[in-house]
Each structure stands twice: as C-alpha cells, then as structure tokens.
C-alpha cells in the first residue's frame, strides 16, 4: 500500500493558499441582485400585517417577498418540516424569517429589510426547558412543547441501584453554542432559460437541499440543481437549509441572479446552534469500582423549530452512558421546543454535552471509590462483542479500551504527579482524562447510503464523482487516495469532483462521521469495479484472459505487452464501454435495534488526557497539553487525522472554557467574533495525536470516521484536570472562572 496510511497533501491546498479557491461568498454574476431577510425582532408573536411599501420606495430595492410568494409548501426541516420558509401568521423566535428583500447592493438589501414594516401582536414566550415543560406553559407549536420523548431501559434500575455501594446524583447544564465557521451562510442562485434553478451554496447536504428546495418551490427535483463550491467551514451549521430556499425564491421572482452573504451578526444570531442541555444523572457502583446502575434524564432545548432536534437528543441518549458495561440503565430523553433560536447539528451531534456530564460524574465516582480515574474507566469499559449501556452489542471494531490504554502509556499520564508541581503560589496544575463514543452514520431509519462514480479520462487520469462536500476536513483527498490505491496509481492522477446534484451521484450529507466509511467505501467499490473493467478491456484488446492483466502505475501489462491508461481509455470507447462505473454502499445497521433509530452499528471512540493550570486568584484555566488517543480504524492519511484531532481539541477547549451564547429573552447578546469567544493561536496547547490499533471491517481499508469523537472527550478531560488541580468540580459548561473562584473559596473555608 503506497497511498493508504501515508500523508498525501490535500488536493485543494494549492488553490486555497493562493486565494484562487472560490467559495460561495466569492461568486459574482453579471446583473446580480443581493438578498436579505426581514427577521422578527420579537420571540413569539402573531403577524398582524406586513407593509413592503417603505422598503420598495428605497433606491435599489427591487423586490420584497412574503409567505404568499412561496409557490410550493411553505415549510422545511430535516426530519419534521415544522419551520416556515417565511412566516405567515406566527413568528416563534427572534430572527424568524418574515420576508425577503432583493436589491442592487448588499447594503441596499439590508437597508430595505429594515424598512419592511411588520406589525406584531406579542404572544407569551418560553425560554428554558423547565418552564416549557410546566403545565400551562406557552405553546411554541400547537402540538405541545415536547418534540420527542425517548425512553430506554435495560435491566432494572429499581433493583440495580440498591446493589451499589456508592450512588451519586448530579445535575449538569451546558450552554448553547455557535459553530462560527469562518465563512458565514452564503450562496448564489440563477434561473436558466430552461427554467432550471441553480443554487451554488455553502452547504453540507446538496441532495437533501435539492429535495427541500423542490418541496418549497413546488417544482420537481430535476428543476433544481445544487452545486457546492469550496466550503469555508461548517461543523454541522450548514447541514441543511440556510439561505438556499431564499435564494431560489428571489432568483425565480426577480429573474435575475441573486446572491446572499450573511453578515456575522446575522449568522451568529439566527441559524441553528448547539443545543443547550439540562442533564440529570444518577450512577451507582460497587466499592471495587464496578458500575452497577445508571439513569439519565436529558433535556435538549431545540429552540423554536425541530431542525435535527429529536435526533440530536437521540444521540445524547445513545452516548450519554458512554461505552461502558452497566447492567441496569434507564434513560429518558426529551427534545423540547422553546422560543429560543433553533438548535441543530454541531460536531458531535448532542454527544459532547452528555459526554461532559457523564465523564465528569464517572471521574467523581472514581474518587469516591478511591480509584485512579483511568483504572476505573478501564475496569468498566466494554469490549468487542460485549453489551453496551443501552443493550446494544458492540459488534464491530471497538477501541475504547485501547484508547484508555494509550492514555495510560502516554508521557502526560505517566508523569502526571510530577507535572502537578508548580512553583507559582497562585497557580495549581492537574491532569484529567475522559473518553467518548460516537456512532458513524445517521442511525437506523434514515436513508444512509452513498454512491460514487469513478471514471477514467481520455488523458489516462481518473475522476471520482461524489455526492458529498469537503467542508474543510479533507475527505476529498481521502477519496482520491482510496481510488488511487485500488487502481495502483498515484493520487496525483485522481481528482475528486464534489457535490453537483445534476452531474454526481447522491451521497447524503457530510455529517455524522459517515463519509470515510460510506462515500469512501463507495469509491472503493467503484474503483475496484473500474479496475476490473480496465483489465477486461485490455485483455479483450490484446486477446487474452482478464486474469492475465496486471495494472501498474503507468497502465495495464500482460505477457510483456504494456499500454498507457490513456490507451485503455480509448479502447473502452472502441469497445462501447462507458468511461466510468458507479457503486453504492449502504451503512451497515445494528443487528439488535432498540427503537427510535438506535443504535448505530459502528462506533468510533476517543480518550483525551489534558494538563491544565488553574489560576487560584482569578479562576482562569489554561490548557497546557493534550494527548489524544483515537479509535478511527486504520489511518488513511496521518496528516488528515492530525488535522481533525488538533482542530477537534481546539473546539473542545472552546466548548469547555469559552464558548457560550448569552441568550436573553430569546435574543443572542454575543453574536460577534469579538464577544463570542473562540480559541486563538496563543490559547492552544501542544496536542499529541495517536491512533490506536483497530481495523473496521466495513470501512475502506479498515477506516472509520473520527471527526466527532476527536472533539468529544476534550471538555470533560479539562474539567477532570481542574478537579485534580484544585479539588473542586463544576457542573456547568462552559467553565465559569467566577464559579470556580467561589468553589475554591468554599472548599478553602470548609
């Protein structure tokens, strides 16, 4: 293997370092208009009237559209279509879309949006899950404030908890958060003469977008073409409709190309966020550290619309007790509507929240049992073939134990007692560990497959056409490596062409740590098939048996005869063969379904160790070192893996220590990069990444996805390190220095 397991520089890096790479924000069309959204300034109200007159009177304003101008169904949503494209009678959050404006310039469009007069009759609102679940709470939707309740039980917690020697009950809260991709929501739409609407959009989900666009525009899907240019980061934020429908409506209504590029404040206020959660845990263990029973009540605030709400909460349920052996468990998960801005998918998909809480709680339990927190985890971690906490069987590669053993053998962990020593009397240091589990794929019940087409070009190079988008993680380069490896060529001679719903086969979203396995495997199968076709073609041309043909880097060879790939390509034309072959791969499903789309069949695991320094005076926490041990199956591209890991750690540190949407009465108060704090270069510690030795049979060359697990256990490792450093544990995330100072003082006084 020459292409697999070695660092291949990402194919798009050159275009990105020169500034040539075009993103949705970089598209300009002759005669294009700019679009802007009129958004509700109140969290919950009836719309009494909309007057576009003052806006239309402004210079440059070309059109104003309202719900009446939505020709198809005025609704969208990934699972439940409960969000109006443009609100007709009710707005449900501050920022709900009411009308669209198209104008000659971006400034004029936003100016126009400010001048559309909308009269509202306020309705009572609800802003937190506890209030939303009270009797007689204001209803966000008529059907009630519970979008979904999931209940799972294994064993019997009633008899389980009494068997435990030590039982802990704790409540944790996590704040809503922002993805903050450097590129905000953007796109451009254009109607061609044959009536096809083409939308270039910064999106993770071209094919689902096409479906949602067709639904809202009342057009067949073959009249909608979605093309994805380079994507400037997404992390779940762009998994679904952001501005795509608005663009199509405006382009269709005005007959001109229309561009939208959301300013940062709009992006960070009104698009789906990471769910804020309320997590009530109870866990019991024997004195020797054996876990006996665990219960979780998880409340996920999905905001005013479902987006992915029930699935994100479902993920919380699935990952909320980690990958441990626990005989008695009970989980209740609630996805709850409020009048907050909607919450959606964000790297980890509901997992980082529960992982923070659960791994904090386990750590505390280890202390109470008088055990080393790492040994405690190792004692309880489930292995391949064993039953997980939900009753699922870990029936594929299961590397939780290896990731923990990796931590145990790491310099950071071995030297942790020495590392705690610090000369500054105002500082304290500690080391913490935590693990996480994340399924690969969308889960049972959601169509979860990908196709790929691998073609040979006349010049003898190859193209992989896929339906998914590289949003920065580098998956397109991985696909090239897979194809190159099977064909025995260099990845230099393979190009990957991404999402174009007219030209490429469908691939589903770039999400859920699914693409290495799904689209990767589809590329694998297509390349394997193309290899067969190439050999057959050469054999037929030379008059021999296909088995006698071998592919070399330069082309096929048979009994002393050689040809270039370019020649084979022309023979394929002569022999009437299409230049490419398609393959499809369906995500394998778990053999023991638990209902609610649970569980996954394939899981990735990670463990992180963190060294932190706590400022005893200010409560500020600095992360000094992180070691990551990742169960991602066989590593396809080490540099790509490190990139995912280091970026995952950065997001984990932000999640743990900085990031929090301050939302007051439904309004986001910190919607700028100056007020919503993400890590800068000086905030980042040295990150050491290692992959543990596992092999996932389902994935291409034994690989599986790691994007989400690579970030998931960072936050609890930090909180656990803080506990190690100063002896106090906080239960609200992000860590509040103020709370920490108070907790340290309380501990000091007692």
């Amino acid at each position, binding site marked *: 293997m020459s292409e697999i397991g070695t660092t291949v520089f990402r194919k798009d890096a050159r275009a990105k370092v020169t500034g040539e790479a075009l993103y949705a924000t970089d598209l300009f069309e002759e005669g294009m208009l700019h679009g802007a959204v009129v958004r509700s300034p109140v969290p919950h109200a009836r719309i009494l009237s909309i007057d576009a007159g003052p806006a239309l009177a402004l210079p440059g304003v070309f059109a104003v559209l309202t719900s009446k101008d939505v020709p198809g169904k005025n609704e969208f949503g990934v699972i439940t279509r409960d969000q109006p494209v443009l609100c007709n009678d009710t707005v449900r959050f501050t920022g709900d879309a009411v009308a669209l404006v198209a104008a000659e310039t971006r400034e004029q469009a936003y100016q126009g949006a400010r001048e559309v007069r909308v009269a509202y009759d306020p309705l009572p609102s609800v802003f937190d899950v506890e209030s939303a679940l009270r009797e007689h709470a204001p209803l966000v939707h008529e059907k009630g404030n519970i979008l979904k309740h999931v209940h799972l039980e294994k064993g019997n917690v009633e008899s389980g908890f009494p068997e435990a020697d030590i039982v802990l009950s704790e409540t944790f809260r996590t704040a809503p958060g922002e993805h903050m991709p450097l590129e905000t929501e953007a796109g451009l739409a254009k109607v061609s003469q044959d009536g096809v609407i083409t939308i270039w959009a910064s999106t993770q989900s071209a094919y689902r977008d096409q479906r949602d666009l067709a639904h809202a525009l009342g057009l067949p899907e073959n009249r909608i073409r979605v093309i994805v240019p380079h994507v400037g980061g997404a992390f779940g934020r762009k998994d679904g409709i952001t501005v795509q429908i608005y663009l199509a409506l405006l382009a269709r209504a005005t007959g001109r190309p229309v561009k939208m590029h959301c300013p940062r404040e709009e992006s960070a206020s009104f698009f789906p966020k990471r769910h804020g959660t309320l997590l009530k845990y109870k866990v019991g263990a024997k004195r020797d550290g054996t876990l006996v029973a665990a219960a979780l009540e998880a409340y996920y605030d999905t905001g005013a619309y479902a987006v992915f709400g029930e699935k994100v909460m479902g993920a919380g349920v699935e990952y909320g007790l980690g990958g441990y052996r626990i005989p008695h468990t009970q989980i209740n998960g609630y996805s709850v509507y409020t009048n907050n801005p909607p919450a959606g998918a964000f790297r980890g998909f509901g997992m980082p929240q529960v992982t923070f809480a659960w791994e904090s709680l386990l750590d505390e339990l280890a202390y109470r049992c008088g055990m080393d927190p790492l040994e405690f985890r190792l004692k309880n971690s489930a292995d391949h073939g064993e039953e997980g906490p939900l009753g699922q069987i870990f029936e594929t590669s299961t590397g939780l134990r290896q990731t923990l053993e990796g931590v145990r053998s790491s310099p950071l962990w071995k030297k942790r007692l020495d590392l705690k020593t610090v000369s500054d009397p105002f500082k304290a240091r500690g080391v913490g560990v935590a693990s996480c589990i994340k399924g690969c794929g969308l889960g049972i019940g959601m169509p979860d497959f990908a196709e790929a087409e691998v073609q040979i070009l006349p010049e003898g190079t190859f193209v992989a056409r896929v339906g998914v988008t590289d949003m920065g993680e580098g998956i397109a380069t991985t696909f090239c490596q897979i194809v190159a490896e099977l064909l025995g060529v260099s990845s230099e001679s393979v190009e990957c062409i991404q999402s174009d719903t007219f030209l490429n086969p469908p691939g589903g979203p770039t999400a859920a740590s699914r693409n290495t396995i799904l689209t990767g495997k589809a590329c694998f199968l297509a390349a394997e098939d193309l290899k067969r076709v190439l050999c057959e073609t050469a054999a037929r041309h030379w008059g021999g048996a296909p088995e006698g043909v071998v592919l070399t880097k330069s082309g096929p060879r048979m009994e002393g005869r050689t040809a270039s790939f370019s020649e084979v390509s022309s023979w394929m034309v002569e022999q009437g063969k299409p230049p490419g072959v398609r393959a499809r791969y369906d995500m394998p499903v778990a053999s023991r379904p638990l209902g609610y789309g649970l569980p996954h069949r394939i899981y990735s695991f990670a463990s992180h160790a963190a060294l932190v320094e706590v400022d005893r*005076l*200010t409560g500020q926490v600095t992360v000094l070192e992180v070691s990551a041990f990742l169960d991602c199956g066989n590593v396809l591209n080490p540099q790509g893996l490190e990139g995912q890991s280091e970026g995952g750690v950065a997001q984990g540190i932000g999640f743990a220590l*900085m990031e929090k949407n301050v939302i007051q009465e439904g309004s986001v108060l910190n919607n700028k990069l*100056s007020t919503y*704090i993400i890590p*800068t*270069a*000086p905030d980042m510690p040295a990150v050491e990444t290692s992959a543990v030795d596992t092999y996932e049979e389902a994935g291409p060359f034994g690989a599986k996805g790691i994007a989400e697990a690579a970030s998931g256990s960072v936050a609890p490792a930090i909180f656990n390190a803080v506990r190690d450093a100063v002896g106090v544990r906080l239960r609200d995330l992000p860590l509040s220095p*103020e709370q920490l*100072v108070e907790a340290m003082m309380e501990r000091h006084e007692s």
Partner: protein
Amino acid sequence: MSLEYIRPRNVEEALECLLSRTFKILAGGTDLVIQLREGRHKDLPILDISRLSELRFIREKDGKTVIGALTTLSDLLSSESLRRTAPVLLAAVREIGSVQIRNMGTIGTRFCQIVSLGRKGRTRTMPLPDFLLGPCKTVLESCELIHSVSFSTPPVYQHFEKLGERKAQAISIASTALVSGFKNGRLKGIRVALGSVAPTVIRAKQAEAFLESRPLTPDMILDAGEMAAQEASPISDVRATAAYRRKMVMAMVTRGLWPCLKEVGESR
C-alpha cells in the same frame, strides 16, 4: 452614508477644517469603521488625519516622555526608549487587539497621564483623569484634536495584568497597572490603576496612600487589594458580573504587589 472625505495635509489645515464644521475624525479607523458599519455618523463628513506625521512621534527628554496622538500601538512596541522606561505601557499595549489592529490603532486617548489638546491657535494640557468623562466620553471638543500624551518616567517596579476571556484579542474583564519605587522598606510613588471596573480608568488612591503609609507587609497587600476593590465601581455584562470584577481587582492588585515584598526588603 457620509459622502465626503477630506485628508488635510497638516495639523494646521486639519484644525481649520474642524473650526468650519463637524467632522467624524478618522485616525486609526479601528473604531470608526465599525461605527460607520453600524450606521452611526451617517451624514458626517470624514476627516482623515491618519497621515499627519506631525502627530506621530515618541520623544523622551529629561525624564519625560511625550507621545504624539497618532503614534500607532505597533510604533510603541518597537520603541527602544519605551522598552527601557515604561515596560508597563508596552505590556498593556501588547494586550490590545492583534498585530493588525496594533498596526492601525493609535495611542490616541489611551493610557497616559497628561493629554494635550490642540485647537487652532490654542493648546490646552490636562491630566488624564480630567480628560476622561466616561465610557467613550472625553472633554475633547469638536474643533479639537488630541496632540500628544505625556508622562514622567515611571518608577522602577512596573506590573501589568489584564484579565480577558482568552489569551489574545480579548476584551478586558478587568485590568491592573502598578508602578512603584522603594525606599527604606516602603513603597514610594506607588500608582495603582484599574481598568474596566469603573466608567473610566481609575486610580485606587486610598490603596495607594495606605501602601505608602508604612513598611510593606503581606497583610497590607491583602488590605490594599480589598481597598482597591472597594474603590472600583464595576458593572455586569456578557463577559463577567460586577461581583467577579470587584474580586478580580483584589486578586490582581494582590498578585501585582506580591513581588514588592522582596523588593522592599532589598531597599531597607
């Protein structure tokens, strides 16, 4: 949007413009452009003084440093003389924004003891506290420009600490600057400045007086921290609560004074 943009050739011309009508002054641009984007100062013409080299200088003479108002923050950081005389100032400047912002932003009203203001034909000079009226409010009149800021070389012990939500590009939660000399086991010429915990930067004068009143002890440092905290009048915002800010004044003043225990010992 303002449609007029004037770039005077010298200070004289700039002051003349200011006498004739109201302008929005563009110095570094780091605040003004944001305000323009927010739709403020819509109809005001812009007076771009950013290239008035007469106001971009750092001079040190006889124990006094004078810095022209248009000196960029990066200029300060590359000044050898400031590195020698006022590291506390550079420590504070390093915490402002990013390299890009420091290349653009000017010292303007930031950080100085004495401010000189010029209007055509008249210059007035005043201590910084008199210049600052409140958040983003100063005594500067619309026909005036800041000429320069000046300060006497601070004493040898200098300490700066800023508390932000991250390690760079952070808006301050609270900050403390301390300078002091030492004589006979006591602090001498101690100045304690507190940032982001009152409507303007303030000095903790009670704490200063207390610290000079007797030979320094650890308990005195804690008491001075407490006093400084009481002198602050912080507010709560998205970054921190008022209570935390007050505590942090105590924490930072304590930390800043701690090394003085050793220094005063050596001055005995």
